């Protein structure tokens, strides 16, 4: 179970490959791996977005993500979980979040990864400020999944 807040750009695919190689390995009890990667769009609410600042609450953001990871591991009997979340200044197209879970069967992997993303979006202390042509604005609502 790993949670990482990154203030610089990360490549979710190489990070995932390394994590799989070093932490999960070729564990025969893992039959299913579910991966979600969220990236920054260049549009929102009808406007072109040229950049974004992602603010977090150092300490609370990590502990909240660890709390939901522990809950997911117990509830779905996961073999492992991984959350990487970007903070700081972002450009369109850059990955924001990586969620991966490993379990014996696909049902647990699909359900746990979806649940982790929804918990993260609705309660983890993270705030987006979008840069538009005419200034910047705080995002006040999440788009529905």
């Amino acid at each position, binding site marked *: 179970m790993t949670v990482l807040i990154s203030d610089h750009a990360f490549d979710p695919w190489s990070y995932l490959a390394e994590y799989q190689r070093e932490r999960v390995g070729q564990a025969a009890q893992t039959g299913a791996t579910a991966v979600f*990667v*969220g*990236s*920054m*769009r260049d549009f*929102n609410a009808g406007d072109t977005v040229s950049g974004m600042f*992602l*603010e*977090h*609450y150092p*300490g*609370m953001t990590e*502990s909240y993500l660890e709390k939901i990871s522990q809950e997911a591991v117990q509830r779905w009997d996961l073999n492992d979980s991984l959350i990487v*979340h970007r903070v700081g200044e972002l450009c369109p197209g850059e990955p*924001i*979040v990586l969620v991966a879970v490993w379990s014996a069967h696909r049902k647990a992997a699909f359900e746990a990864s979806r649940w982790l*993303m929804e918990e*993260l*979006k*609705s*309660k*983890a*202390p*993270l*705030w*987006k*400020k979008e840069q538009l042509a005419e200034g910047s604005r*705080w*995002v*006040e*609502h*999440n*788009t529905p999944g």
Partner: protein
Amino acid sequence: MRVQVRFFAALRERAGIPALEVSVPEGATVAQVWSLAAKKIPIEDNILAAINMQYAGFDSLVHEGDEVAFFPPVTGGAQ
């Protein structure tokens, strides 16, 4: 007793300050900390609070040395 107050995101900008210390009486609640710390900012239903990095209600009691944070609804994850 003294508590540390922190604001985040849009609330931090509206408060004009990221953190401050306030003195509150024994038995004070998060709501009392808010009214002392936020002063001119009108309270809105959607403002969230945390004590020592755990979500807390506005009626929760605070204690000496607590860190009380206020922030707007969260917007993490992919959009």
